[in-house]
């Protein structure tokens, strides 16, 4: 009898310690030992500068984590935009005994078989910046509704509820990113009844194209108070307004170096103020730490939203110094920041911003 009681008490103690563990795992960095774990990055394409920076960010953060004895090893494999090859590479990574695989998928669905195999082999799979549909994978991605909302929130912080004319520069017709961001804009516009969408052009995320397209539509437009963008198009839009001798409206920038340089120049000359936001190639680091934290025992939701990198007036100079000419703003995502991002996702709180460089 006493033996059963002892067992019962032991079980109760066990339960409470589990509960305590859970509470600790809920917030902050999970400290489970992952020093023997290996994390691999399966990348669908390595042939452009954005992807090159993405791989480099992952490798640097991985090397640092290995040096700090947080993980044992990392590896990167890239397929040349061939989905079948990426699938077989994932099968190989299973065979090579990796504990977690982060995936930038070349197809939202065609890797499902391979990802399922990895999950069945007990491997943590984190897909990022792509909409992988296999439910066993964790997904780390931006929310384009928040992108659009942040743009309009800034505009309303400057213009208030006054009637205003808004020009939207979109990406490319038929593109998935463009479609989702535009839907976000339509949703966000509903919250601002006094704002009127007066025009829409396709700038292809390129300064020269945006300049040409905006120049083309400007003569037909009344006064434009604000311009919504998708990144890469802000500089061209500003040039178009200047060429037409119109005052510069609030043009939301997209974290490109030329856009920030123009913003600074206009601010120094006449106090021009705007706001910049965008995706960062180093989102691979977020996926890396999410995978590490899952291995360390942290409770992570299946979808982790990543904050967009936002630049406000006071931080402009600091960010501008970090960007190479012609480049895109990039940032480091250290372990603590990623843990905070995960916690904010769990608690459905506003995501922490990426701190400005000192």
């Amino acid at each position, binding site marked *: 009898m006493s033996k059963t009681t002892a067992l019962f008490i032991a079980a109760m103690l066990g339960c409470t310690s589990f509960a305590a563990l859970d509470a600790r795992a809920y917030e902050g960095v999970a400290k489970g030992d992952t020093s023997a774990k290996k994390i691999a990055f399966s*990348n669908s394409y*390595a042939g452009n500068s954005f992807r*090159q920076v993405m*791989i480099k960010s992952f490798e640097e953060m991985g090397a640092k984590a290995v040096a700090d004895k947080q993980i044992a090893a990392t*590896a*990167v*494999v*890239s*397929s*040349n935009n*061939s*989905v*079948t*090859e990426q*699938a*077989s*590479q994932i*099968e*190989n*990574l*299973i*065979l*090579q*005994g990796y504990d977690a695989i982060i995936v930038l998928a070349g*197809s*939202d*669905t*065609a*890797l*499902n*078989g*391979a990802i*399922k*195999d990895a999950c069945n082999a007990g491997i943590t799979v984190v897909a990022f910046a792509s909409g992988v*549909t296999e439910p066993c994978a964790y997904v780390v991605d931006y929310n384009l509704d928040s992108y659009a909302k942040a743009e309009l929130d800034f505009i309303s912080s400057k213009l208030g509820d006054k009637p205003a004319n808004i020009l939207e520069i979109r990406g490319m017709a038929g593109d*998935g990113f463009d479609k989702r961001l535009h839907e976000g804009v339509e949703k966000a516009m509903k919250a601002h009844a006094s704002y009127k969408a007066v025009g829409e052009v396709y700038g292809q995320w390129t300064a020269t194209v945006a300049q040409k397209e905006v120049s083309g539509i400007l003569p037909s437009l009344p006064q434009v108070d604000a311009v919504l963008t998708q990144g890469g198009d802000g500089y061209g839009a500003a040039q178009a307004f200047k060429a037409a001798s119109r005052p510069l409206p609030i043009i939301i920038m997209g974290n490109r170096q030329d856009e920030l340089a123009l913003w600074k120049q206009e601010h120094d000359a006449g106090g021009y103020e705007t706001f910049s936001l965008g995706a960062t190639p180093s989102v691979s680091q977020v996926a890396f730490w999410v995978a590490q934290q899952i291995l360390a025992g942290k409770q992570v939701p299946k979808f982790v939203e990543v904050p967009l990198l936002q630049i406000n007036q006071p931080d402009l100079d600091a960010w501008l110094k970090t960007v190479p000419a012609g480049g895109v703003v990039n940032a480091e995502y250290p372990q603590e920041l990623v843990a905070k991002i995960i916690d904010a996702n769990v608690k459905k709180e506003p995501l922490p911003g990426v701190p400005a460089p000192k």
Partner: protein
Amino acid sequence: MSDAPARVPARSPSNPRSALLNAMQVGLPAIALLVMLAIIFSIRPAAMSYFGFHLLFKLSVPLVFAALAQMMVIMLGDIDLSNGAFVGLITCITALYLGDAPAIAALCYLVLIAAYAGLGLLIHARQLPSIIVTLGMSFIWLGIAVILLPAPGGSAPAWLAAFMSWQPPLMPLSIWLAALAALAGHLVISRSSYGVVLRGAGGNPRAVQRAGWSVVGIRVAVYAAAGLLACLAGLTLTGLTTSGDANVAPAYTLLGVGAVILGGGAFTGGVVSPVGTVVGALTLSLAGSLLSFLQVPPTWQIGAQGVILFLVLAGRVLLSERAR
């Protein structure tokens, strides 16, 4: 050329030395395959198991069928540049219809195989270069696939996915299928008397015609067979990926050509080896895996894969020069 005896059995070893070289020429992709496996096993001994082979060769099943489809066309002295896009279209049809409306799916397959046969007829009747016709068709296949399934999706019927992950006794499914395909191809193309006629239609069509065979009929039948094999490639690929994607397999076109040539085939027509093609397809699909086991930096991987291909192909060309 026309009065020369049909050079169907292209290689006729005259002395033991060239016989050995001939054997090596066919055996080269097999040797390359074994060397790659040996390297992988030395890096990761755990891969030398049923499960290891299962994972290593899983994705090579569709490539084996796609390469055999390409081999049929190359046997006639033609080339098929629409092979990969066609496989993508089959994955879309399979993911959309095979589960809920198998009759519609079967009808689509039949129509598409008939279209392939019609392609053979068109190429023969109008004496068109196959490279142009099939290049054009690749865009048509892709276009139909995108209309059917604008964004990747759909789902493979459960039985198909289950079959592709089935683990039969003795060897993994992929090895069984590759072995069966190689055996069937060997018996039909390399051993049967009809196979001689088929190869003859590519090597010396006039001689075959004079012998009383319909070259048109042969071409139509061979193109239909190529369509059927490409259908099998699409079906097995859908079973593996569990979904349809129009852009899933463009690489199969040229990998298939590579496998045929690697396996002892020649663009002149009439010279192909089904066993060699299957081994060639396995070799090419393993080349990518080898690089990820060797941990080649990502920026070098694409180039390194090309180097492996080049080395194996160059080895084969050197051997065939010697054998002559």
